[in-house]
């Protein structure tokens, strides 16, 4: 046996027969090792704590006005100041943060999942599946989504925010799906996908194990952008009275209300804006980490294993 080992250095002793780490463990390990992911996760966690613990920290409620303090700058009593009605901006911001965190994360998650599945299925199966799914995508693209949401949302009034999330996600996945479809079509021709087919791996499994990890870089970048976009499109709808309605607030409605007053009463705008930026930034950090962890060739996330003697010169460029 030993003589044939032309390329490996030494035949390993039998001691190392512990089960080798699978992809899931490797990706998780790499993600946790990256500092950006930890920082991002901690920020998101803190934001959630603030959103749901914040209301208990202040005696003020997000609707009740304080007629003694109207448009007051931040002070010991009103930490983030008050607005034109005398409502406490801190209480409003944390209340808005609750909504926006959930809406932003869920919309991005749902739309990315739908987009990747529809896109990958259309690209992988081809033929009639492709034609039907592409038709659906095109149909959804030409529908004036705003109008449809306007028509449907009164009917969904009782269903609460989850219906709103579903609605936003439903009009947010098509372009991503088209990109995933074309990427899948080229991946499908690659030999490793063919190899999996000849091994008898089932189509859906090929999509999950081979296709999606290889489009993951795009999906993750797209999802992190979608988080910010979802918060903003929720704002637009809220502005027209759909989605989050007064007296309830979201970060979007706060921003919309505060934008024109920002130069004079900055506390009405900048606290909400800063939290949104922080949120999107944290999501980006996590996304970057995830992307690096999934991409074995990315420099930043390569495990510090250089000490392991042998060359990989011909492969690593």
């Amino acid at each position, binding site marked *: *046996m030993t*003589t*044939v*080992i*032309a*390329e*490996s*250095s*030494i*035949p*390993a002793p039998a001691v*190392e*027969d512990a*089960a*080798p*780490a*699978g*992809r899931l463990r*490797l990706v998780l390990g790499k993600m946790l090792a990256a500092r950006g992911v930890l920082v991002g996760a901690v920020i998101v966690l803190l934001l959630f704590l603030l959103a749901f613990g914040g209301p208990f920290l202040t005696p003020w409620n997000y609707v009740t006005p304080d007629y003694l303090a109207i448009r007051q700058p931040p002070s010991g009593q009103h930490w983030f100041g008050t607005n034109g009605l005398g409502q406490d901006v801190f209480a409003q911001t944390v209340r808005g943060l609750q909504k926006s965190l959930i809406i932003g994360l869920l919309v991005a998650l749902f739309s990315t999942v739908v987009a990747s599945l529809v896109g990958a299925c259309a690209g992988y199966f081809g033929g009639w599946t492709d034609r039907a799914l592409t038709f659906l995508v095109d149909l959804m693209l030409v529908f004036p989504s705003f109008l449809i949401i306007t028509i449907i949302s009164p009917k969904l009034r009782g269903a609460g925010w989850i219906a709103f999330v579903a609605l936003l996600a439903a009009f947010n996945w098509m372009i991503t799906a088209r990109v995933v479809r074309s990427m899948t079509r080229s991946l499908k021709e*690659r*030999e*490793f996908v*063919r*190899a*999996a087919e*000849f*091994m*008898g*791996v*089932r189509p859906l*499994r090929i999509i999950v*194990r*081979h296709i999606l*990890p*290889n489009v*993951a870089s795009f999906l993750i970048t797209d999802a992190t952008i979608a988080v910010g976009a979802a918060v903003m499109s929720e704002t637009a709808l809220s502005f027209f009275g759909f989605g989050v309605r007064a007296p309830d607030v979201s970060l979007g409605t706060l921003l919309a209300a505060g934008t024109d007053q920002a130069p004079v009463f900055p506390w009405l705008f900048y606290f909400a804006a800063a939290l949104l930026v922080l949120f999107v930034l944290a999501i980006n950090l996590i996304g970057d980490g995830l992307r690096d962890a*999934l*991409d*074995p*060739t990315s420099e930043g996330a390569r495990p510090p294993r250089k000490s392991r003697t042998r*060359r*990989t*010169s*011909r*492969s*690593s460029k």
Partner: protein
Amino acid sequence: MTTAVETDLLTVSDLTVDFAGVPAVRGVDLRLRRGETLGIVGESGSGKSVTSLAILGLLPGTAAVSGSVKLDGRELVGLPNKELSAIRGRKVAMVFQDPLSAFTPVYRIGDQIVEALRIHQDLDRAAARKRAAELLDLVGIPSPDRALDSFPHEFSGGMRQRAMIAMAIANDPDILLADEPTTALDVTIQAQVLDVLRTAQRETGAALVLVSHDLGVIAGMADRVAVMYAGRVVETAGVDELFARPQHPYTLGLIGAVPRLDTSGGPLVPIPGGPPSLAALPPGCPFAARCPLAEDRCRTVEPELLGRPDADGHLAACVRSAELAERAPAPSEVYPVPEVAPAVADTAVREDREPVLRVSGLTKTFPVLKGSVFKRKVGEVYAVDGVELDIRRGETLGLVGESGSGKSTTLFELLHLAKPEAGRIELLGQDTAQLDRASAHRLRSDIQIVFQDPMASLDPRMPISDIIAEPLLAQGAARELIARRVPELLRQVGLEPAHASRYPHQFSGGQRQRISIARALAVSPQLLVLDEPVSALDVSVQAGVLNLLQQLKAELGLAYLFVSHDLSVIRHLSDRVSVMYLGRTVEAGAVDAVFEQPRHPYTRALLSAVPLPDPAAERNRTRILLAGDPPSPTERRTGCPFRARCPVYAALPATRHARCETETPVLTEAAPGQDHTAACHYPEA
């Protein structure tokens, strides 16, 4: 030596090329005399192409070139681009590897040759065009006047390479630089193109620098050879001297690692390890880590390229070259050669072994479609049109054919495990036409494939433990079994189980192919389909993989369907061979019978086209050059499909032509009961 200096046409001394601080060429000295052919051999990454590009100043701006390149006494390094342009094409012309990308696709071939002519010569259009037609005629392109008006895509690969050579010799250059000119071509076309290169050299009297990884091509073409390793010339000598008495262990290893067409069986001599990374070269000789003769002094100082005074220009960069010259050992005496146990096929009679795969009359056609919205069929491509295969347990069937002969289509038809368009596929006694989904899925574990390019066939985003586990998972194997099997498989193919959690890109080419093999073996198949498994690998690494395949066959009693365009590899590894031409099996039989007494004229031509890594034998062979390219498979011809290129048909008296023209030959046995069939009406002619 001193007398040669006056006649040196090109002198390269101490040429170094760096790419962003990473050396690619580290001090190369070459000399080229008028009219001679210098072969530069080396594996990928050895710096041979960079050297040839540096001579012409064609490297990108990121490359830092130093040293000296003197053409007729004139220094080329550091010359401004404008002055170099006057030399390129006029004094030194280049033939590139990929002829498709060497022509501008939107201009006609004629215009491009005319352009090359008019840049350097004062000719009017008509005269230049006439000269271009002469040039195309010289390189053997039929009806040159019409060819001038063709676009590059209308030419086949071989024709394009001829046109490329025509363009290179258009201005009677002093030097032709050919960088792997035949690597992308089939053997019969390669033989044609090499012949054209010889003609071109004879007509122009130019010196030829031939860069190649193929020792056979070098042996047949070169007068002198320079062997490159890790960016340096490690040995240079006259071609006979180099092949007969190599003085550098690397050259010796290379010669031992090449499978030969004229001998069969036995393990090859692999060079252990892989080429070093030029970014982090250890001190001392760069080959020391792979060298069985390395001593302590090899690891301290890098040896100079030196020769003994009586050596007649034979130089080697090795501290023990004198010893090698004296002892002249065979490669197997220097390098450790693995023991390969006899395979099942060697111990049992063929008839007693049960059949693994039987294919008869397999056909596959692809429709040619036109139109974008409503596609209509305008014709058919007969990709596979009557393939016969027969593989028994423990034996290797080599499937040979040139590109377009339907090899890959045949494989994919087999692997689909579905009902073929016509004909019959029987795997382990089960007719694939009668399989239901569940039994087809079960049967998948008995037939596995190893692809040509290991980088493309391994998912770059999966650690190799998951890659190897995939077929097991697909067959629903238990988690414990998978955890046990993966390290076992890695060890079986000669990799370290500790590396299981690495990703494919962290391995070298040969190691990746081993991973592919491990994946295929995971479900203990009976038949392994190997689709050109070593053609993407360097010679020294290829030998290791071929030895591994032989050993696995002996250990596991596997049957292989080995597809390759490389007849030497087929000869080395196969028990039986099957030759395909235009989608048909034209000859099949035991490997020794087919290679020693080929009965089909196509097989004979194929065999004679393969270059031997032995200069003396190479010069004494008679070549059968086939005319033209394989015809298009879009039409079905009556009679023998090979007759348009067939030397036997051409030599036959007209009275016997009719049979070839009307009657399609079927596979017939050479003698009753003999395992050797050929589809030719006149196999004895």
